């Protein structure tokens, strides 16, 4: 993975000491809240309902064991012993003292981490496929490009005052695991007919109150032009993006108001001016960054095939976990392990210090020292030999991390919601917990098959509800929580925005409604291979509406 050079170290250290000084001046009353708030936000410090919150960047979701151990230590020493892994592949701490935040940032800097650009109207943490560098279906590792974008966008003066926040995602496989079509810029790394690497460029996707699917404005951009083209997009956005209304300030609105064709023309025209400048990436630089992400040297471990076959027979729990949570690696003797942070009835995305340390140990011992955070709020060990899977499973089981539910109905994404978040209208986590408990039986979950439920506590959509196969949005109605259900959303290579199915449900009725939807699907699917999403796309909302509201109902 990428290692800081002297410049990076100095930069991050300077930022920490600058921030330490800002906090001291704030505490002594030298600067007031109006002046200080933007400064703390620039360093990832928010204020939530119960306390401050610190959001730490995990670039493209990649961590090593030393970093994970440090995250665990911070949770233990400065927080309440746990952290929340988010849909943006970051981690959030829910209880840090403002007075401790400089020390926390110092601890992070020691392991090459920080909280810069995790808030504010700048280019945020660049996210990437969590299986990058490992997945069998990958064309090339997208992370070197994410790293190039990270370096280029960090502290870039031109992008410090964008009209609004800006999120970039990169994927390197046909199967989109990074939800690139709901990002401000989505990059799909691929090869053209000549075998050269480049990107399909998607612009103007987003969730929030106005969900929009990105437009593909270029089918193939040579890799050397990554920065010149991105700069062209950013310049058009910086110039014409709306600053008069924060709800209309994202690039998705600009693309829509300008029109896809005209917007593309503007970007291409700008690009002509930039194409042959110093922004063109020399092959040497590309190779130098790519070298940081060189795949680990994986020895053949063919004995694993026999070992797991025997272990599967002996232990049905292990068999279920391998089936559900281990995906094919490009090396046939290896697997990609998804560590579910969704125990039945648990809090999606939360991990305590011991769990984090266990994952760190396993990564070090069995996983070539690599850990990933997925946008589905799980952790991933990308390179585990099949021969070692049983050790990994047993160690995970011992700390409650071996739930065999990746991609199933209890693998729910949920934002913090009203249990923590100052912007929330309703709680999300308890809704996730109750659904998870209702569908606790793994057998039943497997019978249902792939089904993604995503829950947000307000229209900001941090819980991705717009792209949930079943999406749940919490609203406040007459002082009480109410949940609106959308169906048919999806955040992959065939992205779609879910449609509201009808009037909302009271908290005690949401789980029943979800169960009704699932039962309706089971009754209508053509066969066990037709997933919920496929069935919904085939039959549409009508049977679900009828099952939920009866024939005479009107959609609210």
């Amino acid at each position, binding site marked *: 993975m990428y290692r800081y050079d002297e410049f990076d170290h100095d930069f991050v250290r300077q930022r920490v000491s600058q921030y330490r000084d800002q906090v001291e001046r*704030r505490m002594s009353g030298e600067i007031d809240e109006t002046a200080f708030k933007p400064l703390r936000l620039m360093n990832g410090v928010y204020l939530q309902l*119960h*306390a*401050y919150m610190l959001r730490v960047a995990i670039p493209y979701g990649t961590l090593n064991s030393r970093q994970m151990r440090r995250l665990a230590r911070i949770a233990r020493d400065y927080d*309440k012993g746990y952290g929340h892994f988010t849909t943006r592949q970051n981690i959030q701490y829910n*209880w840090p003292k*403002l007075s401790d935040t400089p020390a926390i940032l110092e601890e992070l800097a020691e392991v090459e981490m920080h909280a810069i650009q995790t808030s504010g109207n700048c280019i945020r943490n660049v996210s990437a496929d969590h299986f990058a560098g490992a997945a069998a279906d990958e064309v090339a590792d997208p992370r070197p490009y994410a790293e190039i974008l990270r370096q280029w966008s960090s502290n870039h003066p031109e992008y410090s005052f964008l009209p609004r926040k800006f999120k970039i995602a990169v994927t390197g496989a046909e199967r989109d695991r990074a939800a690139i079509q709901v990002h401000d810029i989505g990059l799909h790394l691929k090869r053209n007919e000549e075998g050269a690497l480049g990107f399909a460029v998607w612009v103007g996707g987003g969730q929030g109150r106005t969900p929009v699917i990105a437009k593909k404005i270029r089918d193939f951009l040579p890799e050397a032009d990554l920065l010149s083209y991105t700069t062209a997009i950013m310049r058009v956005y910086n110039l014409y993006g709306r600053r008069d209304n924060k709800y209309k300030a994202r690039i998705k609105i600009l693309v829509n108001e300008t029109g896809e064709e005209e917007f593309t023309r503007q970007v291409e025209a700008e690009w002509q001016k930039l194409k042959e400048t110093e922004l063109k990436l020399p092959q040497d630089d590309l190779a130098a960054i790519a070298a940081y992400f060189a795949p680990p040297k994986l020895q053949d471990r063919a004995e694993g095939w026999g070992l797991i076959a025997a272990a599967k027979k002996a232990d049905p729990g292990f068999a279920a976990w391998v089936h559900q949570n281990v995906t094919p690696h490009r090396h046939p003797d290896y697997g990609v392990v998804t560590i579910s942070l969704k125990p039945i009835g648990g809090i999606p995305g939360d991990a305590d210090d011991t769990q984090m340390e266990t994952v760190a140990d396993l990564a070090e011992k069995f996983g070539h020292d690599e850990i990933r955070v997925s946008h589905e709020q799980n952790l991933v060990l990308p390179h585990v030999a099949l021969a070692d899977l049983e050790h990994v499973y047993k160690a995970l089981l011992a700390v409650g991390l071996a739930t065999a539910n990746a991609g199933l109905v209890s693998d729910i994404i949920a934002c913090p919601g009203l*249990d923590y978040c*100052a912007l929330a209208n309703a709680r999300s986590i308890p809704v996730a917990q109750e659904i998870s408990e209702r569908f606790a039986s793994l057998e039943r979950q497997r019978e249902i098959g792939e089904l993604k439920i995503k829950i947000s506590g307000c229209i900001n959509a941090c819980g991705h509800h717009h792209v949930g196969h079943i999406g749940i949005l919490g609203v406040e109605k007459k*002082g009480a929580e109410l949940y609106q259900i959308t169906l048919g959303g999806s955040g992959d290579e065939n992205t779609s925005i879910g449609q509201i199915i009808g009037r909302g449900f009271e908290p005690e009725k949401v789980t029943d409604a979800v169960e009704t939807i699932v039962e309706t699907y089971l009754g209508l699917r053509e066969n066990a291979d037709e997933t919920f999403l496929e069935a919904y796309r085939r039959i549409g909302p009508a049977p679900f509406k009828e099952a939920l509201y009866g024939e005479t109902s009107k959609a609210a």
Partner: protein
Amino acid sequence: MKKVLTANRLTDGIAVWLGANGQWLENIETALIARHQEAVDALEEAGKSAFNDNLVVDVEVIDVDEVDGDIYPIRLRERIRAAGPTIRTDLGKQAEFKPATAA
């Protein structure tokens, strides 16, 4: 009319309420209840000056009720602030003081 003054403490962000003795308290139970407009105005003034003195941030006057002698915020948001996360009853005020329930 029943209102109390709430905020988050500057140094650690912990939710606090203004008490009768003019202190910011970590427990809503002993917060000062304003029962008429003049008292609400006084709360607002107290909030402004505490903010200006850099003691607290996010100052707000909130609606409450009294149930069996306990202060019961009207909005769920404020009940959760007063008790702690509903999904971690081992954390927050509910764990530190006498059991309160948010939901």
